[in-house]
């Protein structure tokens, strides 16, 4: 009699702990996903300022700068159309990343440009912005993987249904070109 009662209490306690663990991971995953959004927005807000700051020094590379502005405006527009367009949003953001990395490569090509303070700052800000987005995605992927693993593992999987735990999708690079050009090379200064 007592044994059964104790066993029941232990099982109930475990179910509560497992349920709460899953909910906590779920919310962490949602939050990590929102963090990517925050960093993307930050990039949108930053780009016009950065481009304005270096416009004078980089007059001869107008097309590169214009490409960045255009890609940025496109990304803002797609983002404004609503959060459902995940595919389009990620395409626009990837295009923006591409334009920015071309700008960085251009700056690399002119050592005398790097000597002026503005450009050095631009380079640092761009690198940091791209890093922030990459790290936000990395955190999301790490958290989502933890969440996915937890809800599939026995015995937590038994309460996964009660907690409405569903597999979280990982963030992947869709653009093959972006995968081929590693950004890391640019940041190695």
């Amino acid at each position, binding site marked *: 009699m007592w044994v059964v009662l104790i066993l029941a209490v232990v099982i109930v306690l475990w179910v509560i702990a497992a349920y709460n663990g899953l909910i906590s991971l779920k919310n*962490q995953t949602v939050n*990590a996903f929102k963090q990517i959004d925050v960093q993307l927005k930050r990039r949108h807000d930053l780009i016009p300022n950065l481009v304005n700051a270096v416009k004078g020094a980089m007059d001869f590379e107008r097309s590169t700068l214009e490409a960045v502005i255009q890609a940025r405006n496109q990304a803002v527009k797609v983002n404004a159309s609503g959060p459902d367009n995940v595919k389009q949003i990620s395409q626009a953001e990837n295009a923006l990343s591409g334009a920015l990395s071309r700008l960085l490569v251009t700056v690399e090509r002119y050592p005398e440009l790097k000597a002026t303070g503005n450009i050095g700052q631009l380079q640092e800000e761009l690198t940091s912005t791209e890093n922030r987005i990459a790290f936000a995605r990395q955190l999301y992927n790490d958290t989502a993987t933890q969440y996915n693993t937890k809800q599939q593992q026995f015995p937590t999987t038994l309460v996964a249904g009660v907690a409405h735990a569903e597999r979280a999708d990982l963030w992947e690079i869709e653009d093959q070109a972006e995968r081929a050009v590693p950004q890391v090379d640019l940041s*190695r200064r």
Partner: protein
Amino acid sequence: MIGFILFFAWLGFGGDYIWAMSTGHHPFPWLGILLTIVAIVTAWYSYKTGPEKVLWATGAHELIDPQTDAERQLVNVVEEMAIAAGVPRPRIWIVPDDDPNAFATGHDPLDSHIAVTQGLLRICNRDELQAVIGHELGHVKNLDVRLMTTLAALVGAVLLVRDGMGRMMGRGRLGRDTGRRAKDAGPLVAILLALWVISWIIAPLVTQLLALAVSRRREYLADDMSAQFTRNPLALASALEKIEGAAAPTESIKRGAAHLCICDPLGRRLTNNEGWLADRFATHPPMSMRISRLKGMGYAQLKKEGGSFTSSALG
């Protein structure tokens, strides 16, 4: 923390017990109560004021409005790593010292501080700085900072109490009296007395060993966390190599805060030796072991990605 308070309670009540046994009558255990209260107050006070004390002791100043490129880069790197770790941005401090080193302090991720020396900013490139900051944020995320900062303050407090008590006992009749009467009271009391006296002598050593044991294990963990955040263990390896190469003692970081730093600021050669004794007394695992562990991680990663190891990967 609890161990610390219990240890002090043993010192106090043990003293009372021996006192009672040897003198025959039963006085009020004032020593035990006093010492326990002292331990609790010290522990609480260390916990509360630890971060400020550590930062103040190193002469660090907070970086609020970055002026130079290096400072701007530091702020950016810390913010990036905070995103990667999923913790709020810690407050950033700069220690005016030319020797490369860094440490983290604070109570929890919501209230944390990261301090780097000017020397570190000078010799590290962006990736290496990122790796070092990742290591420190690893400490923050693991709540090591709370434990280690409190330990830093406690080590100092124990030394202080021991010295104070030692002076009191040496001057008063307490020491001589208990010693003589214990002999009459039987072997059990004598053994207890011996144990008690030894405890007093080794008290600072025990607290220090505790701090060291905690610290060494946590260093490996923080190295791993840094690799997890940056996905670039080789950057930390090369940062550690640079820091080790510059290994002059960091003058502004005192003994008590040594276990908070990324590498032993006292420049003890012990850190590089292996073996039982070195393992016991160093605040950090041997640098060569940390570096080779990180390089192992880095090579494994490169192998998986199908790349080849080049010197450029080391920055």
